[in-house]
């Protein structure tokens, strides 16, 4: 790096998320899947050991991916590579930064390593994305240094209902905070358990201070366009692509539906003949203790 250049600034961290907007970030577990995702038009890939549907099926402790797999994925594609670490597991995060990933997802999809504290993300040069179900959770994560938020949904279900719930909750709470009187903000911050300065920022600007994607249950082009019309900045698709009958075709279709999310003619065209979608799970069939969205504090 040459003279007077500064790395790892908040603007540089949030800036990469800005460049991903309007795009699809796809879960991949091998270099081959990463190449398929890039060819389909993904803006980034998310490296993990197993997709959420398989984590759910396998049970046990889910951890960061093997560094060899992360290396292979980093070497296989030219788009940004993200990777998941466990909530609060700052050593997994240190390892992922050392491997050169472009974004770390401190993710509820993996088994939490700390049931009280998240990673202090200000300690890192690499940016972080974190999950949130509501405004308070989003602002706590941003307060800890997250440079991008994704609403959680319920991962590995192929069921978009929780993604919709969380996005609507987030947007309704933002509108509410923007509408209250300034002297109410201290109590709002207390009720949301969120840093006052960030609550004030949301009040003044009527939006989150970072990019907000949607995740957790998106399985079809229509699901992706639904989340975009509701107001997210882009989508994460986890199990929905590589657990379906024709991953390449479905991945391309979800990319096009995310760009043309308001054009029903295009969404109808790309939705044809995609083969079998992943088998979905009804949220009421998942015991409370197995709901990934409950993880994170």
């Amino acid at each position, binding site marked *: 790096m040459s*003279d007077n250049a500064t790395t790892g600034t908040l603007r540089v961290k949030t800036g990469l998320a*800005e460049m991903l907007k309007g*795009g699809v970030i796809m879960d991949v577990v091998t270099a081959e899947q990463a190449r398929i995702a890039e060819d389909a038009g993904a803006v980034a890939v998310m490296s993990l050991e197993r997709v959420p549907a398989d984590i759910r099926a396998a049970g046990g402790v889910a951890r960061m991916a093997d560094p060899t797999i992360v290396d292979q994925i980093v070497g296989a594609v*030219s788009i940004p590579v993200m990777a998941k670490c466990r909530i609060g597991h700052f050593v997994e995060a240190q390892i992922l930064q050392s491997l050169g990933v472009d974004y770390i997802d401190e993710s509820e999809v993996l088994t939490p390593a700390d049931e009280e504290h998240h990673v202090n993300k200000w300690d890192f040069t690499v940016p972080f994305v974190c999950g949130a179900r509501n405004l308070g959770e989003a602002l706590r994560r941003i307060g800890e240094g997250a440079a991008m938020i994704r609403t959680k949904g319920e991962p590995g279900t192929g069921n978009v209902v929780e993604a919709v719930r969380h996005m609507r909750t987030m947007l309704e709470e933002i509108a509410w905070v923007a509408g209250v009187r300034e002297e109410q903000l201290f109590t709002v911050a207390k009720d949301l358990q969120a840093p006052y300065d960030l609550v004030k920022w949301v009040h003044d600007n009527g939006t989150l201070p970072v990019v907000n994607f949607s995740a957790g249950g998106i399985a079809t082009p229509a699901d992706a366009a639904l989340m975009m019309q509701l107001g997210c900045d882009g989508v994460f698709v986890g199990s929905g692509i590589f657990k379906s009958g024709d991953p390449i075709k479905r991945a391309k279709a979800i990319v096009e539906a995310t760009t043309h999310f308001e054009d029903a003619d295009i969404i109808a065209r790309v939705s044809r003949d995609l083969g079998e979608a992943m088998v979905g799970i009804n949220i009421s069939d998942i015991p409370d203790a197995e709901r990934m969205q409950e993880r994170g504090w």
Partner: protein
Amino acid sequence: MRVGVLALQGAFREHILAFEALGASVRAVRLPAQLDDTDGLVIPGGESTAIAKLMRTYGFYEAVRARHADGMAVWGTCAGAILIASDIVDASSDQEPLGLMHSVVRRNAYGRQVDSFETDLDIAHLGEPFRGVFIRAPLIESVGEDIEVLARHGGLIVAVREGDLLATTFHPELTGDLRVHRYFLDRVVGAR
């Protein structure tokens, strides 16, 4: 005078807001027909591979080349600077440049995201230093004879102009400083 911002993927909203703040007439361009009454086009930052695939699927290569031949000005930022070049070094397998500007551009030339940076730049015609935000930025490795180099950082080219074409490898749309947008409107689109 109307400018369009290619809105397939990336930081198109920030460019639209910047032009609106300058009082310009601006539209999001998602289909080639929307280029018909556009005097200047911005191809924004984003993922150049994803944008290129969507451009091909929806017929933008032919449309942008034809409209540029008719006199439409074009500004590429970051991914856009890659796409308007004549040659891309390290292009992904099917990534074709538009071939508008006589430039050779290398993708991800500064490294990975941990190497992304911001710094002050001296840009020709703009006066005071401009905050350059470089995110997984490309490098303009070489340019043709008729290209004006507007800015360098560490000796490397970061902003160039060739007639009605402008390329920046950094992101003025992320800074709130509207001087490059003003320059594009007044001196590039307006000078045609």
